């Protein structure tokens, strides 16, 4: 799998973020042998083949990347951010996404994407869309 990216390789950039047992963590500081028996989710496992997770869709929709190298880590971290309940305002998103560095500085669009996805992922959001 090539989705997860090695950036700084020292726990500073967040490009390697994956979920282990549902928690966002840095894979560059995680020994694979230590993750035996745990459920590891990478960007590849976020949505069924051929479909986009709401966050992937929001990143595409809001143009939340330029070179794309940090994007897999941004998306995985954003899944954690939303699931933890830390995506209710732009300020909160900025604070709780601060572990993901974007050298292209697509930060405003990333915040928009996380905010849009948080709304789409809110319980009942699908029903509202159907109603319209």
């Amino acid at each position, binding site marked *: 799998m090539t989705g997860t990216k090695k950036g700084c390789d020292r726990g500073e950039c*967040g490009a390697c973020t994956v979920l282990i047992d549902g928690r966002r*963590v840095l894979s560059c500081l995680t*020994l694979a042998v230590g993750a035996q028996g745990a459920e590891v989710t990478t960007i590849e496992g976020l949505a069924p083949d051929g479909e986009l997770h709401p966050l992937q869709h929001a990143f595409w929709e809001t143009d939340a990347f330029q070179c794309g190298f940090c994007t897999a880590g941004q998306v995985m*971290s954003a899944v954690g*951010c939303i699931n933890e309940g830390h995506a209710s305002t732009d300020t909160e998103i900025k*604070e709780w996404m*601060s572990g993901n560095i974007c050298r292209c500085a697509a930060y405003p669009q990333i915040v928009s994407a996380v905010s849009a996805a948080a709304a789409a992922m809110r319980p009942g959001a699908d029903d509202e869309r159907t109603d319209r």
Partner: protein
Amino acid sequence: MRPFTYARAATVDEALGALRDPGTRLIACGTELVNWLKEGIETPARLVDITGLPLAGIDVSDDGGLRLGALARMSDVAAHPTVRDRFPVLAESLHRAASAQLRNMATIGGNLMQRTRCPYFRADVELPCNKRLPGSGCAALDGGDTSSHAIFGWSNDCAATFPSDLAVALAALDATVTAVGERGVRRIPATGFHRLPGTEPARHNELAPDELIVAVDVPAAPGASHYLKVRERASYEFAVVSAAVTLHAEDGVIGDARIALGGVAHRPWRLPAAEQALAGIALDDPAGLRAAVARSFTDARPLPGNKFKVELAQRAAVRALRTAGGVQ
């Protein structure tokens, strides 16, 4: 990275047994040690994973104190309702440390076991550093950049600062670190857990080679409290200086205050002279607060690059006191 073998400890006794082998290092979630492995700063022959030990509890004792298991994750402690309600200084110090991903991984015990270091310690090109290679010298004190370094308690061998935010809060809270080893259980005050450099800067803390941290105990009823972290960007950055305070005040007048500073020394730096002078000072008297805090700065020894820390740290202490006391 040098090859190493890996095993898991199922009990504290197994972990202590593993420590008898000097080539073994214990590893929890790895946010500190894995970096040192990659950089060749640590070269163990064997890692023993202790994440399976039953040390992840966050317990409130009958008297209202806290027992934080050594393997409790930073994020879980920061989110714990009792920690947030009664120990804001603790929750704030954890929340402002590192990033969400690192806080999800890093443990309370591991946080305290971080190396006291400066940028020269882990420079890409190896530079003189008495912590990394004892006797090699100090690139910072030998005409280097001392902007991030200590203003208290440094020696001619090393002037690094301890990077943890949590430890600063624990020092203000008069917490104790509980360790077990061959000789049994030992309780070490958080204020003295980390060592000053002296002539042995390669020794970072008081934990003996045969010991393992099992818990951190925080006494009940700290009063009001606050952790102020001053840094060069809004999030995800080490402190330039920080101030942890606890406070008992009545009618806006301080009865009892405790202050620990981060970013100024080899360990969290308590201000006993200031704490004594603060009793009886009103929280809405900034000049009085400042004069009391200044009592602890008569022995400050700034380096060429960090004279600003002497002023910044005093202002941080005053502001943290006022914020904790609800005065803006």
